[in-house]
């Protein structure tokens, strides 16, 4: 049984196959065709919907999500808002009215998704401003990119959409008369729908504890694990696989920890990117800036760091950073937990150290000690929502003019995310000199034999990775010699504004 609300109205669905997506549910079962399918892979945003979840203070907080790869069973206890739910009769929501007035739709196919991304931005702004969104300053480019980077438009070139985003806050807030605004106590009713329903024989399981999880896996060995579903669901939509039985990992308290300990940060494997992003902002700003270019807002609100790690893709953006930070992983199994350095987790292409019964429990990131630096640089064809051709994550400290504990981790250079051991050795205990880095670049060439694929040629990957080391040298040199700059000779620019680290 899935109890949720759709545009303010309670819904209760029974007997829905576990691998039904929200998009399929909307378009084929609920006859709500405003939400479009553009790619069925979470890349275009035409299917964007808003998911409202109780914030524990009597309010609903909304985030955007891709309905095409969102399991319908994950709607339980949520308020699903679609483009049909915003206008009240002929009165448009500010996000809609601004889109019309700014001439921000042409063919209109991406428009419902863009309206929903603007709606979630508006709701967040309304919340931040105490329901006085008109008092807010214009959005920063970064905020707009975060909100709209996952919505492709092929017609407009985005300028009028940018204008609409900036303009919508100025519309009278009382125009925010979505159809379901009138329904009082919606948040309470939504929260209520999250309560357990009677056991109904569904093949979509929601264990609440590790013990329950291990029992389920023992009894249902063919069931697949799902958290954010942002990768698993591609098997459903792209390979047309049937996923007859699923175990949802999002309700396990053990996998939802987000704790700052003396030694470091503990992140449960099922914590979404959106949830830990603010923590990273404070402690690992270089990692946090990478996250702005990691997929889209829609994905970051569903996807988990645990998924990114356990998936073990050679081009995942998270793992190289974990390697550079000397992170460790906690693997939970029926026999107990074990902690493993991240670098021992990735064995071969898509092969990990996870035992058959084990799941990834936590990712543990040690704090960066004073003086220790982290840089994360991602190279891709498009700045937003693209997969890396090469990702470099570098960590080091400079002691008495020499580099110590150098970590040079890369994605896209090998079958697994990996450290460049030869290049690390070439820099260890060396000053950040051109000669040392030349040796490191030389060594790097022996560390990796990257493949050529759709995202880049082998030659490009080698050259780009080597050049990232040169960029690293320049960053170290310019940051340590900053005081020497006179006002008339501005510091040398090493990276572009849009890629600033």
């Amino acid at each position, binding site marked *: 049984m899935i109890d949720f609300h759709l545009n303010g109205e309670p819904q209760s669905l029974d007997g829905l196959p576990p691998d039904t997506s929200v998009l399929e549910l909307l378009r084929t079962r609920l*006859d709500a*065709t*405003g939400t*479009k*399918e*553009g*790619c*069925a*892979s979470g*890349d275009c945003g*035409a299917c964007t919907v808003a998911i409202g979840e109780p914030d524990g203070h009597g309010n609903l907080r909304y985030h955007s999500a891709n309905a095409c790869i969102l399991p319908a069973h994950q709607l339980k206890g949520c308020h699903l808002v679609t*483009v*049909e739910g915003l206008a009240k009769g002929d009165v*448009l929501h500010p996000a809609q009215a601004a889109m*019309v*007035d700014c*001439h921000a739709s*042409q*063919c*209109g196919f991406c428009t*419902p998704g863009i309206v929903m991304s603007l709606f979630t931005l508006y709701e967040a702004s309304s919340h931040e401003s105490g329901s006085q969104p008109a008092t807010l300053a214009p959005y920063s480019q970064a905020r707009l*990119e975060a909100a709209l*980077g996952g919505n*492709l438009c*092929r*017609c*407009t*070139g985005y*300028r009028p*959409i*940018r*204008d609409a985003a900036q303009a919508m806050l100025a519309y009278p807030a009382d125009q925010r008369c979505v159809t379901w605004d009138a329904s009082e106590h919606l948040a309470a009713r939504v929260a209520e729908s999250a309560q357990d329903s009677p056991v109904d024989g569904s093949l979509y399981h929601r264990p609440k504890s590790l013990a329950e999880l291990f029992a389920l896996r023992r009894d249902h060995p063919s069931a697949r694990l799902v958290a954010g579903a942002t990768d698993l669901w591609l098997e459903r939509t*792209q390979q*047309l696989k049937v996923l007859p039985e699923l175990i949802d990992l999002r309700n396990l308290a053990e996998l939802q920890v987000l704790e700052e300990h003396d030694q470091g940060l503990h992140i449960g494997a099922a914590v979404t990117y959106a949830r830990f992003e603010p923590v990273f902002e404070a402690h690992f700003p270089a990692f946090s800036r990478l996250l702005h270019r990691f997929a889209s807002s829609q994905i970051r609100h569903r996807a988990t760091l645990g998924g990114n790690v356990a998936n073990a893709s050679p081009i995942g953006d998270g793992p190289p950073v974990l390697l550079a930070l000397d992170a460790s992983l906690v693997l939970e199994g029926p026999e107990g937990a074990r902690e493993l350095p991240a670098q021992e987790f990735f064995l071969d292409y898509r092969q990990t150290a996870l035992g058959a019964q084990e799941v990834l429990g936590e990712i543990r990131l040690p704090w960066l000690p004073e003086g220790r630096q982290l840089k994360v640089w991602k*190279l891709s*064809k*498009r*700045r*937003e*929502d*693209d*997969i890396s*051709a090469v990702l470099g994550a570098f960590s080091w400290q400079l002691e008495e003019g020499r580099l110590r504990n150098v970590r040079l981790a890369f994605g896209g250079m090998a079958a697994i995310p990996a450290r460049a051991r030869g290049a690390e050795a070439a820099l260890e205990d060396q000053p950040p000199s051109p000669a040392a880095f030349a040796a490191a670049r030389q060594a790097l060439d022996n560390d990796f034999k990257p493949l050529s*694929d*759709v*995202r*880049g*040629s082998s030659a*490009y990957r080698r*050259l*780009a990775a080597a050049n990232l080391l040169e*960029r690293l040298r320049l960053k170290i040199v310019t940051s340590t010699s900053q005081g020497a700059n006179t006002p008339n000779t501005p510091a*040398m*620019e*090493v*990276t*572009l*504004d*849009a*890629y600033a680290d």
Partner: protein
Amino acid sequence: MRTLTKLSVAASSPDMASEASSVDANSADSKSADGKRVDGKRVDNKAAQQHESAIKHVTGRATYIDDLPAPAKALHIALGLSPVAHGRLERLDLDPVRAMPGVVDVITFHDVPGHTDIGPVFPGDPLFVENEISYAGQCLFAVAAESHDAARRAAKAAIIEIDEQPASLDPVAAAEKNDLVRPTHVQQSGDWQQSLDNARHIVSGEQFIGGQEHFYLEGQACLVTPSEDEGVVVHTSNQHPSETQKLVAEVLGIAFHAVTVEVRRMGGGFGGKETQASPWACIAALIARRTQRPARLRLSRGDDMRLTGKRHPFHSRYRLGVDDNGVIQGGDMTLIGDCGYSPDLSEAIVDRAMFHADNAYFLGAARVTGHRARTHTASNTAFRGFGGPQGMMLIEQAMDDIAHRLGEDPLTIRKRNLYRPGRATTHYGQEVEQLDLLHTLIGQLESSSDYWVRRDEISAYNARSPIIRRGLALTPVKFGISFTAKHLNQAGALLHVYTDGSVMINHGGTEMGQGLHTKVCQVVARELGLALSSVRISATRTDKVPNTSPTAASSGADLNGQAARDAALTLRERLFAFALENLWPQAGLKLDDLQLKDGMLMAGSGEESYRITWGELVQAAYIGRVSLSAQGFYSTPLIHYDREAAKGRPFYYFAYGAAVSEVAVDSLSGEYQVTRVDILHDVGDSLNPAIDIGQIEGGFIQGMGWLTSEELKWNDAGRLLSDGPATYKIPAFGDLPATFNVELLKGHPNSQASIYRSKAVGEPPFMLAISVWSALRDALASLAPGGQCPRLDTPATPERVLMAIAAMQDHGDKHPAGNSREDDAHVQA
């Protein structure tokens, strides 16, 4: 004042007069369309009407094909695609497909009762493979099932055995072997060889220009319902309903009048639904007739990208002689279009590339050769610009190369080469009109963009910045407007006025987001003096307006606007004659005294004024037995092209524009960003400034994607690797330049009698994006030793940019790309 009010009219919509002055193209004012953007308020220009579906778009109420309610018993179709690029189909066992759950019908080549070849102009496009497989993704069979998923899963069950043969994937090699889908065409003006022999300098270069996936957000889709007798009704996302009608009829072996095709709107087209929307309608029609059930077919994104053709990749080279001022004297240009496996529209596309090999510059005594190479890939097809962009890229590369050779600013060289009096004839013999327009436009843009100040700033910056380099470029556009297939330059319209005064206009054009229906309604409202809200378009239907041309070549508003206007004028004349004879017979009024304005028919003034509301007039005319339905027709005058002689006037007029783009490039990573873009574009007297600005901006960004991030990749066996948005990257929100100033050129109505002296706007702005690529080369040139301008093929991904830098550093001045020292030696000798 006498006002005729005696006729009692029940139905006269009160809002009909409310915005009657809203359509006044003469008040078109780009500044107001532009100037009000920042606060997001509605543009106050009355012609800047919102898109007719804007509110439906934002509320999700606009319906696309897959949103149409499923008719009872509708079947879903999926296709079986060839896994290999070239070979012979040895065995196709579909019994396992038939055995899959929910399957109702499976069809192949052998089940087609009528034509099996659906080539739009020339034969060569089999609906299904019979024996020979010509590209990976080619359609082998179709399966119809009770659900979309059931059909797709069933399609995977086929047993396919293919005798695989080597795939031909290199268009240059194909052209050398004369493996062409159509014969080579040559245009020549004067003695090109002599112009090279006599030139002070010879500059030469070559380039590879990548293709482009349309990536319309709504994939190919149709819904076909069997109708009475032997016919079908086809709902399709389609730029060319009449051609689909023809092909469906021919495939079924029935008369055209048994097929009705309807298009309400597309979720994007861009050329990708001109010829390549028809196969799916034909297949669904076959299934619908065989099963007597409605059949719907929508391609998944991956199948869409594998099955359908793209913008043609081009390999081009040039060799031009210039004088000491960098002015072209003549030369030789060769364009090889990669057409894929069949002709499709490639004859006309490579022609248009050749017609634009001059862009805005006088070529002197030149030869332009266009080859149509065959490769084992999907048949490349129409895409915004239709070959024009690829043609322009070559001459724009030449401009930069000449400038760097002679040590001049590229803008100086471009300006010196512009068409001007005495140098005003194209290499295909058309005289260029409005000769001063482009000079004026570039002058204004140079000034508004601070080109020269920024040039100095950028030079100074680059001199002190070893890693980050900036680049700047101004490139113009001169784009020929008209179908080069002369017969397509015609349009029809059908205007109905109902007795409540509401107006329905149908025309042959289709709405793909470009605002065509909005503009056509504006034309009719203007001619009838009505509020825009009283004029509506239902859908484009082949049973309303027959034998239409595709909505393509930027011609939609030019052709259909004129046809609609013709219909409106016909109806207006009828109503005027009726009024003179029956309403005000004693007033001594002449036709010229009457006008339709503000929802009224009016004549005279003061004491001698006559008035009747539109609703009353229509009711009176109906009672008076006047036909309230009119047809309109238009055919473009003046145009002709003699392909034998390669001379003529293929274009009714040219549309112009120019853009200045600035980029910053990271020379260590190849990453770059477009920091500022200034555009000034010529749309004559705008029909709708808001829509026109939207076309300019959208076209520019789409063009930028083509030249930067959108990379099509195939593996060595010819299988498309970039088959979805995860691997094929169209511009995203953050690619919008931080500063993006877009203005319409004012005060230059079309010199030809186009609809209200406006100009076509769909395609021309696409090519403004060449300025981005040129600016990237400009930034790279700052890193090059000795005044080179490095070769930069496209899309200029960060990889290509980085590798271009590496090539310069590796080879130093040994192999200066895009600029041959041998030619210098020739000159010195």
